[in-house]
């Protein structure tokens, strides 16, 4: 009999601490499925950010390095330079990547550092309890935007489209945006992750997969409603797809279409 569903080897078979309906768990699974398919479990290293996914090292069955908030790409840069034959994953939330760690993220991308960033965009600070993130949508409420994100009057700025911003940098070779709000998007997101990981192992340049992810707890929604909100509010602003693909591998390019 063929095995059609199994637990990824690289993911420990334990229940996570994430809230019901959280996107982080699904994303962990996709990463580990790809690692298993590539046979890279023994040569994977994850850089753990400060954010809800601080727990990642409990679940991934490979080595990890934990860094200060936002310094994840700096840590990943150096781990990859020391261990170029390893699959180095820089896992970051939107606060980690696009607020406190913007400088590190931009410069690692610009240097074309050959690790892959998995950028989990849930439009909120999850771990600290629902503050405004750089990716929070205009009008969206947060504990630090009690009347909703207001770009002009209270000077809260506009949501940042990270991939589009990074696309202008020469060092970036593969930038794709997926989501985990339904089966189709989950499958596509997995393909993006696979392409990014493979490009990394071929030594192609900087790669990043942004994943729109649910945070039902801090959006104050039921899990079922949160997947709908990704569709109705987030995707119209954060377009899904390959934002930049300059990979040498043409076949891969086609498969992503």
């Amino acid at each position, binding site marked *: 009999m063929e095995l059609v569903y199994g637990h990824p080897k690289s993911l420990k078979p334990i229940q996570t601490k994430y809230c019901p309906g959280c996107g982080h768990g699904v994303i962990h699974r996709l990463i580990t499925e790809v690692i298993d398919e590539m046979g890279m479990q023994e040569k994977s290293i994850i850089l753990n950010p400060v954010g809800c996914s601080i727990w990642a090292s409990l679940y991934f069955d490979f080595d990890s390095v934990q860094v200060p908030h936002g310094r994840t790409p700096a840590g990943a840069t150096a781990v990859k330079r020391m261990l170029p034959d390893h699959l180095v994953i820089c896992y970051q939330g939107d606060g980690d990547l696009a607020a406190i760690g913007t400088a590190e993220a931009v410069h690692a991308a610009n240097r074309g550092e050959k690790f892959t960033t998995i950028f989990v965009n849930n439009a909120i600070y999850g771990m*600290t309890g629902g*503050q405004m993130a750089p990716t929070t949508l205009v009008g969206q409420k947060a*504990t*630090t935007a*009690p009347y909703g994100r207001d770009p002009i009057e209270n000077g809260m700025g506009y949501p940042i489209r990270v991939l589009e911003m990074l696309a202008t940098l020469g060092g970036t070779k593969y930038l794709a945006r997926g989501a985990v709000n339904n089966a189709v998007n989950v499958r596509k997101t997995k393909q993006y992750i696979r392409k990014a990981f493979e490009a990394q192992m071929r030594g192609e340049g900087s790669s990043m997969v942004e994943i729109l992810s649910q945070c039902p707890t801090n959006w104050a929604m039921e899990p079922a409603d949160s997947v709908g909100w990704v569709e109705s509010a987030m995707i119209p602003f954060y377009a899904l797809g390959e934002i930049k693909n300059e990979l040498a591998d043409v076949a891969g390019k086609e498969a992503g279409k």
Partner: protein
Amino acid sequence: MAAEKRLMKGNEAMGEAAVRAGCDAYFGYPITPQNELTAYMAKHMIDHKRVFIQAESEVSAINMVYGAAATGARSMTSSSSPGVSLKQEGISYACGADVPMVVINVARSGPGLGGISPAQGDYFQSTRGGGHGDYHHIVLAPKSVQEAADLTFEAFDLADEWRMPAMILADGMIGQMMEGVVLPEPKDPATRVAKPWAVGNKGKRAELNHVDSTQLVPENFEKALHARYARYDEIKRTVARWEEQHLEDADVILSAYGTSARVCLGAMQMARKLGLKVGLLRPITLWPFPEKRFGELAGKRFLVVEMSMGQMVEDVRLYTHGKSEVSFYGRCGGMIPTEEDVLAEIRRILKK
């Protein structure tokens, strides 16, 4: 009519006290266990049409505070230990440029990311000048929600008067617990200290104002530092503050600040019931440290209790000039000492 007593979280009480002190501008970045303070400021500063910015990092936030303060505004930030580490550069610059500001640290356990439980491991960082260079700034350590509100309110005046950052060193317990609090009456802006050194509104002012910490000529820099340290001496003489109980007949004096002082108070009460002569000396200002009072008590036996591996204990040893036997009892990593633990330590020391 007496002012109304409100039930508030420490974090919110500090926020409201800052609003009442006339905080013109608040700049913060989320971090547990002080998030309620930033959220409180988000709502109330916007409601009061004052400036609130959630910065992109603590580094940015402290420099926004610096910029606002340079214009003469009452300006403030709050954070917790890892975030306060990032603010140290800005604090060093503020001390170098004599810029007043209020910085609240609702401390948690470290080093590194550590944990989010209450701790007192930031004593050295706060009192020694946690950034580079020769400097100090005022550090106030509240023991209750009431005192957290009172000291925050007062910190704005102290900062302005002495032209330096005033830090509130609280901890996760003070920030997260709820107690009754009577809030200070809003500060009358007319009673604020004048800031002729601030930038902007030059009008007919003859001299230009430069808010700057640069001093490239060593001879001049040395002189400037001496002048600043003369001011520090005056602060030591006039600002040092502490609370004391039952020192006269004490066979052992408990010394602690903030949350651990509350624990010591309970341990002292339990000890007194057993007939043990125990006193309590609680520094309220950690810088300036109440060094004179400790000096007067040199020779007495001390037990210092902290939520750390032992930091303030070094000051107690220093200012009792080697004449006191000073013991230490600490819990760390976010653990909080209990009254029973401290009592057991007292009994061990007194062999009773």
